[in-house]
C-alpha cells in the first residue's frame, strides 16, 4: 500500500498539469459566455421509436419480403406462389379469429388488463337480442355494417326512440358502404392482393336502389341539409347519378344549403348526367358558380372532381379546361395532389390524340418531393406515369425519374396494391429491356429486382429473351431458363421457341471464358425442356402439342454435346409419334444426328433417322443416305433397308464415288 502511495506521489507534475488544464477550461468557458439552449420538448407518438428503428433496417431488394421469411425453404418464387403464401398466412390468422369468435366461451382467461379489444370476440346480435342505442353507436364506431343494420331494425321493431344524430350517422355508414360489409381492417394481405379496380374501367352503377339507405332517407323528417348531402354523396359514390342529380336539383330549388362534399360528389359524376363534352363543361361551371353563390369554400376534392370529369371528356379543349381549373384553384391556394396529376395525365395523354410531353412538366413540378396520401386516387399516379413513359413517350430517362420519385422518402407507400405494383414494374422493365444495353439491364435491374420485387410476366420475359438474342449475350440464358422454371413459364410455346432459337443460332464459343460451360448447359436446358413437357403431358389431360421444329432443335442441341442416349430418345419420339407432331424438324438436325450416330457407331439409329426422313419426304434424303454409306461399313441387312428407303441407285452411286476416290488415291 505504501509502495503504491509513493508511486502516485512521484507523479506530482501530472497532478499539477491536471489542475492547470482544469483552470484553463473554466477560464475559456466563462470567456465565451455561451448560452446553453435547451431544445424544446418534442412530443413523440408511441410509434416514433419504432419508426426510427425501422428506418435503420433499410430495404434489401434482393431479399424476399419480410412476410416470407419464416422458412427459407418455402420462400415463394412465382407470382402465384407469393400470392397463395401470403393469403394462406392470413387465412390462418383469419381462422384463429373465427374460432375465437365462434367459441368465445372456451376462452375465459383474461391475459390483459385493461382487456385488448382487438383480440376480443365481437358481440353477436340475433333477432332476439336485447339492444339499445349505445349498441348501435358502438357498431357504427367500428363500421360493422351488417350488425348495425340488424340492431337498427331491432330498435325500430321495439319502438325505441333513436336520437336524430345517431340516425344520421347510421345513414352515413350505410350510404358510405352501400349497405355492404366492408373488408376487415386486419386483412392487409387480402387488401394488397385484391384485384383492384382496373385503371380504365368505366364507372358502373352499383348503388342498391330502394335499399335501406334510401328508405331511411325518406323516413327522416324533417330532412336537414345533412341528410340530403349524405344521400347525394352515397349515390354519387356508387354512380347512381340520376337520382342524386334529382335530389340535388330539388335542394337547389328549395334553397337548401348543401355542403362542399355534396357538390364534389355531383362534380364527379357530371359525365353520367350530361352527354357531350360541351354540356359537361357548362355544368361544371354552373356548379362552381352555385358554390360561389352559396359561399361554399371549395377544397382539393372539388378540383379533383373537376379534373376527373375533364379527363373523361376526350376532346381537344379538355386540356385547356384542365389548365384553367388548375390555375383557378392555385389562385385560391389549393395545391394539386398526386391524383390531380393522374387526371391531368389522363387528359393529356389520350390514346387517340397526339403525343404529349405533359409528364415532363409534371415531373418538373413534383420531382424530389415527398407525398402523403390526400386523396384515395393518389395511388393511381405512379402506375399511370410509368404507363405513359412506356407506351406513350417511350422515354427511358423520364421513366428513371419517375422511379426515383417513387423511391424517394416514403413515396413507395403510394404504389397502391400488388396489381398496380406489378403493372408499374411491367412497364418499367419492358421499357428498360428495349432501351438499355442488355448487360446493364441484367446487372442493374434484373439481378436487383427479380424475383423478389418483381417477377416478369411471360410477355416481358419474351422481350428479355429478345434482348439477349439481339445482343448475343448468351451467358444469361441458363439463369433465365432457371427463372422461367421458377416462374412457371416453361409451358409457353413462344418462350420455349425463343429460348431454343437463341441457343441454336448462337453457338457458344468455348474460347471465351464466360461461355466455357455453355454447350453443356445448353444441352441440359434442351433436355430439360423435353423432359419437363413430357412429364407434364403424362399428367395433364390437355397435353401440349410438340412442334417438329422444336424437337428438331432440341435434337440438334443434344447432338452438339454428343449425348447419344438423350438424342436417341428425341429421335424415337420423332419417328414413333409422327402423327402427333406438328410440322417437321429442320433437316440439319437430321444431319447432326446421323453424324452423331457415325461418331458413336450406331448404324441402326442412323437408318431409323433415314427412314423417318424418307417418310417425311425431305428432298435431301439422298444426301443423308450417302452420308450414311460413307460413314459406316454397312452389313447386308442394313444395305437392304437403305435401298428400300431411298432406292438402290444411291448405293450404286456411292460405290462409284468410292471407287473413283479410290482410284484417284491410287493414281496419286
Amino acid at each position, binding site marked *: 500500500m505504501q509502495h503504491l502511495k509513493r508511486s502516485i506521489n512521484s507523479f506530482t507534475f501530472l497532478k499539477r498539469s491536471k489542475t492547470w488544464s482544469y483552470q484553463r477550461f473554466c477560464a475559456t468557458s466563462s470567456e465565451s459566455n455561451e448560452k446553453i439552449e435547451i431544445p424544446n420538448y418534442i412530443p413523440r407518438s*408511441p*410509434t416514433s*421509436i*419504432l*419508426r426510427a428503428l*425501422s428506418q435503420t*433496417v433499410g430495404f434489401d431488394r434482393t431479399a424476399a419480403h*419480410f412476410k416470407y421469411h419464416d422458412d427459407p425453404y418455402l420462400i415463394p418464387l412465382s407470382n402465384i406462389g407469393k400470392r397463395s403464401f401470403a393469403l394462406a398466412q392470413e387465412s390462418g390468422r383469419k381462422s384463429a379469429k373465427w374460432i375465437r369468435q365462434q367459441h368465445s366461451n372456451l376462452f375465459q382467461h383474461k391475459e390483459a388488463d*385493461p382487456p385488448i379489444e*382487438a383480440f376480443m370476440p365481437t358481440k353477436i346480435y340475433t333477432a332476439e337480442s336485447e339492444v339499445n342505442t349505445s349498441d348501435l353507436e358502438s357498431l357504427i364506431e367500428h*363500421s360493422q355494417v351488417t350488425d348495425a343494420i340488424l340492431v337498427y331494425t331491432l330498435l325500430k321493431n321495439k319502438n325505441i326512440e333513436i336520437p336524430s344524430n345517431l340516425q344520421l*350517422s347510421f345513414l*352515413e*355508414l350505410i350510404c*358510405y358502404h352501400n349497405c355492404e360489409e366492408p373488408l376487415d*381492417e386486419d386483412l*392487409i394481405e387480402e*387488401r*394488397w392482393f385484391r384485384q383492384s379496380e382496373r*385503371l380504365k374501367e368505366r364507372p358502373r352503377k352499383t348503388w342498391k336502389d330502394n335499399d335501406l339507405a334510401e328508405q331511411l332517407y325518406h323516413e327522416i323528417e324533417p330532412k336537414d341539409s*345533412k341528410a340530403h*348531402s349524405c344521400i347525394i354523396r352515397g349515390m354519387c359514390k356508387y354512380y347512381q347519378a340520376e337520382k342524386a342529380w334529382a335530389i340535388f336539383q330539388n335542394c337547389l330549388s328549395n334553397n337548401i344549403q348543401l355542403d*362542399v362534399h355534396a357538390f364534389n360528389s355531383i362534380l364527379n359524376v357530371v359525365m353520367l348526367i350530361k352527354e357531350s363534352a360541351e354540356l359537361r363543361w357548362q355544368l361544371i361551371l354552373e356548379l362552381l358558380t352555385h*358554390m360561389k353563390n352559396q359561399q361554399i*369554400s371549395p*377544397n382539393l376534392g372539388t378540383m379533383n372532381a373537376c379534373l376527373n370529369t375533364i379527363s373523361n371528356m376526350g376532346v381537344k379543349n379538355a*386540356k385547356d379546361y384542365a*389548365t*384553367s*381549373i388548375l*390555375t*383557378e384553384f392555385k*389562385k*385560391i391556394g*389549393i395545391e394539386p395532389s398526386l391524383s390531380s396529376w393522374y387526371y391531368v395525365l389522363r387528359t393529356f*395523354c389520350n*390514346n387517340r390524340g*397526339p*403525343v404529349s*410531353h*405533359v409528364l*415532363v*412538366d409534371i415531373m418538373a413540378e413534383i420531382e424530389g418531393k415527398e407525398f402523403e*396520401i*390526400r386523396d*384515395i386516387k*393518389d395511388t393511381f399516379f405512379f402506375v399511370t406515369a410509368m*404507363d405513359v413513359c412506356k*407506351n*406513350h413517350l417511350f422515354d427511358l430517362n423520364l421513366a428513371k425519374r419517375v422511379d426515383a420519385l417513387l423511391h424517394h422518402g416514403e413515396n413507395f*407507400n403510394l404504389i*397502391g396494391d400488388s396489381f398496380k405494383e406489378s403493372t408499374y414494374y411491367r412497364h418499367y422493365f*419492358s421499357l428498360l429491356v428495349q432501351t438499355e444495353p442488355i448487360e446493364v439491364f441484367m446487372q442493374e435491374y434484373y439481378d436487383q429486382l427479380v424475383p423478389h420485387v418483381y417477377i416478369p410476366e411471360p*410477355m416481358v420475359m419474351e422481350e428479355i429473351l429478345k434482348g439477349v438474342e439481339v445482343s448475343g449475350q448468351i451467358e444469361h440464358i441458363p439463369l433465365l431458363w432457371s427463372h422461367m422454371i421458377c416462374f412457371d413459364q416453361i409451358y409457353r410455346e*413462344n418462350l420455349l*421457341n425463343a429460348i431454343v*432459337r437463341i441457343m441454336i443460332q448462337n453457338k457458344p464459343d468455348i474460347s471465351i471464358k464466360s461461355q466455357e460451360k455453355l454447350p453443356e448447359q445448353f444441352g441440359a436446358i434442351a433436355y430439360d425442356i423435353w423432359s419437363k413437357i413430357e412429364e407434364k403431358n403424362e399428367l395433364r389431360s390437355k397435353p401440349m402439342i410438340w412442334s417438329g421444329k422444336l424437337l428438331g432443335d432440341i435434337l440438334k442441341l443434344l447432338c452438339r454435346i454428343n449425348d447419344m442416349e438423350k438424342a436417341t430418345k428425341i429421335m424415337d419420339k420423332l419417328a414413333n409419334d409422327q402423327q402427333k407432331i406438328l410440322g417437321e424438324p*429442320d*433437316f*440439319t438436325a437430321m444431319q447432326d444426328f446421323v453424324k452423331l450416330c457415325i461418331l458413336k457407331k450406331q448404324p441402326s439409329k442412323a437408318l431409323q433417322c433415314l427412314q423417318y426422313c424418307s417418310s417425311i419426304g425431305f428432298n435431301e434424303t439422298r444426301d443423308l443416305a450417302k452420308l450414311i454409306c460413307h460413314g459406316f461399313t454397312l452389313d447386308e441387312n442394313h444395305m437392304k433397308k437403305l435401298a428400300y428407303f431411298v432406292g438402290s441407285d444411291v448405293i450404286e452411286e456411292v460405290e462409284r464415288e468410292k471407287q473413283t476416290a479410290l482410284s484417284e488415291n491410287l493414281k496419286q
Partner: protein
Amino acid sequence: MLQVVKSIRIYPFTRRGVVNIRWYSDDETSDDERKKKAKNEVSKKNSDEALKRLNALLQNMSTTKSQPIDMVTAKNMRQRAIEDKEKAEKEATDLKSVTQKIAKKIGGDTQKTEAELLSVLLGTSEQKPKLNEIIGGLKVESERPVSISRAQMVKNALKQHEKPRRPRETAFSAKPRERTEKKGFVNFFDATPLNIFTQPATNVPDSLQTWSKLEEREIKLAVTHPPRNYFEKMILWTEQGKIWKFPIDNEQGMDVEKATDFTEHVMLEMHLEGWCPTRGPIRHFMELVCVGLGKNNFLSAQEKKDHIMWYKEYFESKKDVLEELLTLGDVVEEQKQIES
C-alpha cells in the same frame, strides 16, 4: 389531294419491279374511289409534278424495311417453293422492259427515270442495304430469290411469323406519332383562370362526422401495406392496440385510475359518514374494512366505494336483527356491570 408513292416492290430474282402508287385525298373516300381517281390522274399525265413529288418523297420518307408476312407451315412450304419457281420462270422478263413500264407509269421524263431506275437495279440487285440507301425513304418490299435454301426460307418464314407481338393494349398504347407538343410546353398555372372563386379557400370541417371518419379510415388503409420488417409489424400492432405502447407504461389504458387521486384509494372513512354508527361493533368492523381496502391495490377507487356501499345495504337489510342483538348485548353488558 396528296399523292404518295407507297412502295416500290423489287423482286431481285425476277428482275421485276412494281411501283404502287396510292392517292390520298383530303376528303374521306373509299378505296375504290381512290383507285378510280388514281387512274384518272395517271391518264392526265400530270408528269412533271409527279416526278417532283416522287423525288421529294425519296428524300423525306423514313426508311422501313418490311417483308410480306406469310403464315407458313412446313409441309406446304415445299409446294410453295415449286410454285414460286414456276411463276418466276413464267414472269421472268427483261429488266429493261420492266423499268420502261415503270417509267411510263410515272410519266415525265421517261428516259431519265428509266435510266435512274436501271442504274439502281443493276448496280445493287444483290445488295439490299445500298439499294435502301439510294431509294431513301421508300418502303422496299423485297422477295428473296427462290434459289435460297429451303431451310433458309423456313427460317425466314418463322422469323416473320414470330414477329414481336404488340404489347397488350393499355390506356396509352399507341404508335409513336409525330410530336406536336414541345417539351416544357404545358404551363399548368398560367392559363386563364375561370375567375369564379375569389376568396382564398378555407378548410371547413366536414359536417358529416361519421362519413369523414370512414373516409379517413379508407385513405389510411390505402397506404397500409404488408409490413416490411419486424418494427413495421410492431408499429401496425401498436396502432391496432394489440401491444404495449412505447415508452412502456404498466398503467397503460387505466385512464380512470389515472384521473383519481391516491387519497380516494386510501382515505375511505368518509364513505362511512351518515350511515355508520359512530361507535360500537359495526363501526369497528367497518373501520377494519376501510383499512383493508385502503391497502388493496387490485381494486379501483370506485370498486372500493361500491364495496363499502354493499355493507351499507347489508346492514340496512339486517337492521331488525342487529337492533335486537345490539339491545340484547347492551342489556347483557349492563347486567354484567351491575353484577360486578
